[in-house]
């Protein structure tokens, strides 16, 4: 299983519909800069409530797309926000950014291959 992008899991979530999965991948890629910026704003301003909520939102998208590593990291950020324990949030955010990038690379490659 690829932890950056488990395409089999994602395809099962999409009910086996490859076109839908591709659409979801590109929808996420279009939205991820905004979602990550919102998390970054929360971390930089030390707003634990916003961190919990923004991390939860991206987690909801990632978990449906088979992005296992990024989902776990978003979940950690959400928990940091919920517990108002954001000392290490910046490091975890950097990790999330890298994992989202790895997911997007793997997922867009999958989408292009399955379009051929």
């Amino acid at each position, binding site marked *: 299983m690829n932890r950056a992008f488990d395409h089999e899991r994602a395809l099962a979530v999409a009910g086996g519909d490859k076109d839908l999965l591709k659409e979801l991948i590109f929808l996420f890629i279009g939205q991820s800069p905004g979602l990550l910026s919102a998390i970054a704003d929360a971390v930089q301003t030390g707003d634990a409530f916003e961190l919990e909520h923004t991390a*939860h939102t991206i987690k909801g998208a990632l978990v449906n797309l088979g992005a296992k590593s990024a989902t776990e990291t978003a979940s950690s950020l959400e928990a940091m926000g919920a517990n108002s324990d954001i000392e290490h949030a910046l490091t975890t955010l950097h990790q999330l950014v890298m994992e989202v990038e790895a997911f997007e690379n793997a997922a867009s490659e999958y989408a292009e291959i399955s379009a051929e």
Partner: protein
Amino acid sequence: MKILVVEDDAVSMKLLSTILEKYAYEVITAVTGRDAISQLEKNLSIDIIMTDIMMPVMDGFHLLSYLRADVNHRRIPVILCSTRNDLVSVKRGIELGAMDYVVKPIEPDLLLSKLKRAEARVPGAALIVNHEELVCDILGRSLTREGIRVIMASTGARALEIIKENKICVVLTAIEMPEMNGMDLLIEIKENYPSIHVFLITGHDGQYGKEDVMSAGADGFITKPFTSAEISRRVRPFIK
């Protein structure tokens, strides 16, 4: 069946909408609990609500509390759909009146089985059939205020389609309508769906009188002008 999906994440919303539409559900969307309440006010015939928990402005738990306190919507089955899978959240949701819980990632087959269970809990509806939009709206609002689920149709043909796809307990139909009139609709319903109660609504100077419609099998005859209280009193006993 009409489902209101309440979800702030665009990917989850697209996924849920597409899956539900594939299963032939009609999907209405809202991105916050407050947005969901506006949709409920605009759409009289929402059958099932599927809502995320953590959302901006008004979360899923607050939406549940609102629904349970509201006579118009307290009977709509609600399924919570969230990445949260801790017992505390599940327990709180059920205590607030949710009938079921789906944990993300979505499992389409599991989702479908939960929706089938929710469908069985959808209360029966009153179907209002009238080509005059204003009359439909007035009748619909009177019944909705009484907590009765309402579906509207502007023609007899559309009414028959709705009856085929929904749990209809009572039909309130105008007699004078273009194409299929209320008498033809009454006969069609009584032939094919004898358990549905049918009331015909007409003015004093209509083509058909009370005796005509009662001998054609109607369960009641309502003459304009009618009051909201009268309509509710006549319809309420037949809503199961």
